[in-house]
């Protein structure tokens, strides 16, 4: 690792905030159509960011290789996003603007994101809606045929576009249809059921990847002029999360081990309204739209070890703790605050449900006030989903909810061009760290994924390719052969365990440790304890993991083990980051830094920065490099939701 790589230059263009992107676009170098045909780009991941990028690059004329570990690009977890996508269209004439969306996003992220990136995100947001409409995405419409909007948290304007409760699905199918068209045109070669195992770096540049075919077990090399990672977030480090089962950190983490910086890994969002785990067998958590908090009242019994059913607990023995602590925002307090408050009352032993990790979300007052029919119209599909999963009727008994890890703001470090510190490696969507600071607002993940894929990367990657001469690098080169050999060695090492424990049992144990030490609240003591325990767990994993089956074949246990092995190393980086960030901000709550009322206390003097971590070897503490955040136009303020 040369020192030069870690001169983290964000490459933010000069000029006033409003003009940076336009100026930059005008100055970027272009690749002629004839030359594009001869340049190859690898895109790993086919969710919103990956599919939109692959399609857009192919339309420009590049040769694109698109990789997904799913059986089809349409299965990526972007598909599960429910609520909507933000855009500064101001169709409602309610005072929205690019500036306002920018400002809401910076403030929502607790002033830990880059102004220039976020401003550009707000600028291109409007084009995303136009592009998706052109593709035939069936957005909700008003009676007059105009696009409809709904409101979302953290904003006072109505700027969220939606397709019922399936916005992510429809946007992904739009990007997937464009991708499919380019596959048919021969511009994109797709590799399904193929997992990235390593990044190949040649003369300091990212030049390809090593993959494993998940059906045949074959290890292959793929050469390209640039590599784009669109591999999503890492909430599954907690084992139980709202992520899909296969979501993992492997691609990003292996790029980190090849020299890419990992930024703000401790910024992870815990969503307050999820269905609680029903028992040991729980495999994932299901999110329910936050909109439920508009009419539901959150409470727990005042008494410890309350055993009566909810309906028999009298009013004066209930604690509506959010209304009590935050009288002006009440049940609509922001995600991070609501989540922490739920954890606190459960830690006190006042949680409800079979596992005692749950709080009530009670609609009885709303049903009394507005009638059952009105509530059914507002939340019918969510109530159905809840009763389907829990076998309880939320019209009769209060729902039970509990926070769950949901989105990860942290990710691989990228500059303004979405390129990591490793030249030729671009990172887009949830996999990068760039836009959401320490907390993401609702309906902004879809916006960022598509902004990166449709409207930012397709420009910036051209600027990079225009500056790198074409060469004849082949998969027979020594760098590819060596990386392939290392990949095989890693798989062999995994298979050398004694066979006593399953990969999932280690994953579950790591998840419990991480949610406790590096979840909704973090303390120095807890993090130090976790840093002592994780290496021991990793040791135990390599000694005793059980991996039946052959390597050169479809092998579920081997797939799981590879991902768990990376989580076991990545978890340490997260804890180091949480420990080093000795302040509270957004979703990162250090118990040592809170106000008298228990609110997060930022330290702008020392931590108005991005922490970027450099790999120094397994088990050795990563090296911290800070990128100072120059907030030039936004004034730092305390978030107050009292």
């Amino acid at each position, binding site marked *: 690792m040369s020192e030069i790589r870690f001169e983290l230059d964000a490459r933010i263009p000069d000029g006033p905030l409003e003009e940076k992107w336009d100026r930059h676009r005008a100055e970027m170098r272009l690749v002629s159509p004839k030359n594009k045909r001869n340049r190859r780009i690898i895109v790993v991941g086919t969710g919103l960011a990956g599919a939109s990028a692959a*399609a*857009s690059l192919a*339309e420009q004329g590049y040769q694109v290789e698109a990789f997904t570990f799913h*059986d*089809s690009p*349409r*299965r*990526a*977890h972007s*598909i*599960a996003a429910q609520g909507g996508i933000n855009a500064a*269209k101001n*169709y409602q004439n309610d005072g929205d603007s690019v500036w306002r969306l920018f400002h809401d996003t910076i403030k929502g992220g607790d002033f830990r994101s880059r102004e220039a990136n976020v401003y550009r995100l707000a600028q291109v947001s409007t*084009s995303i809606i*136009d*592009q998706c*409409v*052109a593709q*035939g995405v*069936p*957005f*909700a*419409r008003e009676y007059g*045929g*105009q696009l409809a909007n709904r409101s979302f948290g953290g904003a006072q304007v109505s700027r969220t576009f939606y*397709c*019922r409760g*399936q916005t992510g*699905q429809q946007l992904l*199918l739009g990007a*997937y*249809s464009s991708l499919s*068209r380019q*596959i*048919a045109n021969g511009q994109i070669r797709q590799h*399904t059921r193929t997992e990235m195992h390593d990044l190949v770096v040649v003369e300091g540049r990212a030049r390809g990847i090593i993959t494993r075919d998940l*059906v045949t077990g074959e290890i292959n090399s793929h050469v390209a002029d640039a590599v784009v990672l669109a591999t999503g977030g890492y909430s599954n480090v907690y084992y139980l999360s709202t992520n*899909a*089962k*296969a979501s993992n950190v492997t691609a990003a983490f292996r790029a980190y081990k090849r020299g890419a910086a990992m930024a703000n890994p401790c910024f992870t969002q815990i969503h307050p309204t999820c269905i609680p785990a029903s*028992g040991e*067998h729980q*495999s*994932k958590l*299901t999110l329910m739209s936050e909109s439920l908090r508009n009419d539901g009242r959150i409470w727990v019994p005042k008494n410890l070890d309350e055993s009566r059913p909810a309906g028999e607990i009298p009013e004066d023995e209930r604690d509506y703790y959010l209304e009590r602590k935050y009288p002006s925002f009440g049940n609509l307090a922001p995600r991070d605050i609501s989540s922490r408050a739920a954890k606190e009352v459960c830690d006190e032993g006042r949680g409800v449900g079979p596992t005692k990790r749950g709080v009530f979300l009670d609609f009885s007052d709303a049903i009394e006030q507005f009638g059952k029919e009105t509530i059914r119209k507002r939340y019918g599909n969510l109530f159905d989903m809840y009763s*389907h999963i829990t*076998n309880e009727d939320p019209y009769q008994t209060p729902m039970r909810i509990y926070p769950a890890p949901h989105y990860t703001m942290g990710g691989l470090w990228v500059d303004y061009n979405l390129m990591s510190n490793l030249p030729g490696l671009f990172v887009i969507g949830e996999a990068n760290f760039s836009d959401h600071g320490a907390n993401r607002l609702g309906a902004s993940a879809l916006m960022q994924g598509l902004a990166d894929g*449709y*409207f930012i990367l397709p420009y910036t990657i051209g600027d990079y390719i225009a500056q790198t001469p074409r060469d004849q690098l082949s998969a027979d080169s020594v760098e590819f052969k060596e990386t392939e050999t290392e990949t095989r060695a890693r798989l062999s090492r995994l298979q050398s365990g004694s*066979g006593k*424990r*399953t*990969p*999932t049992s280690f994953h579950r144990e790591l998840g419990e440790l991480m949610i406790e030490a590096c979840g909704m609240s973090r303390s120095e003591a807890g993090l130090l304890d976790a840093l002592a325990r994780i290496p021991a767990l990793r040791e135990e994993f390599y000694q005793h993991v*059980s991996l*039946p089956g052959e390597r050169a074949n*479809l*092998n*579920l*246990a081997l797939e799981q083990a590879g991902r768990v092995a990376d989580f076991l190393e990545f978890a340490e980086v997260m804890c180091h980051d949480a420990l080093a960030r000795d302040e509270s901000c957004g979703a990162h709550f250090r118990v040592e830094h809170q106000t008298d009322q228990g609110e997060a206390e930022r330290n702008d003097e020392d931590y108005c920065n991005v922490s970027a971590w450099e790999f120094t070897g397994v088990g050795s503490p990563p090296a911290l490099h800070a990128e100072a955040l120059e907030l030039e136009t936004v004034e730092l303020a305390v978030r107050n939701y009292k």
Partner: protein
Amino acid sequence: MKLTLNIWRQQGPNDTGQIVSYPAKDLSPDMSILEMLDKLNEELIAAGEEPVVFDHDCREGICGSCSMVINGVPHGPQKASTTCQTFLRSFQDGENIYLEPFRATAFPVVRDLMVDRSAFDRIIQAGGYVSANTGGAADGNALPIAQQTAEDAMDAAACIGCGACVAACKNASAMLFTAAKVSHLATLPQGQVERSERARNMVAQMDEEMFGSCTNQGACSAVCPKEISLDWIAKLNREHIRSRVAVST
């Protein structure tokens, strides 16, 4: 609760395959079918045996990955549900449960309960899109679309591409899947330019993939987790005829 699981095990596409029985105990009625399989797989892996292979991912009923036939019905006994959203409370304590892959010539078995549904992707590649390159799109509100039209399009677009329709059909027809995509785009103004070509090409691809013919019996719609209506098949037939008689568009 206790169940006896009778699971289709097949090493690969060329293996004949067979049902293997596994006793399962200490189950909770709150477990999903997939969580029950997770538990079985944990036991198998710990015992050094190969786990049962099955597709799954989001476990929220939207990604369309999970795909198995439970007691003869794709996605199991619960209406409008995917396998991942089917819970053991739908079964009796002590019951025998049969788990098999989606069976169709066009969906070859990869292993155990996992099948290859890439034929669906190729049907989409044949025309399931609007040819709108990135950039240069007109303002979203420049094209007013009646609320009901958008709702109708959304009804069809809700398809998750799981393939239960094919598995339920005695002819393994992919008409409901193809109809949903053709109808979604034919309903909207954006889809008009390529409307005829799309219907023709997608139907041709569907035939090439060896999906069977439709006899309008509706087994597909009955098991569809998103309750895609049989009416869309009528629309597909209409679109296909239209594409052959239409002079232009």
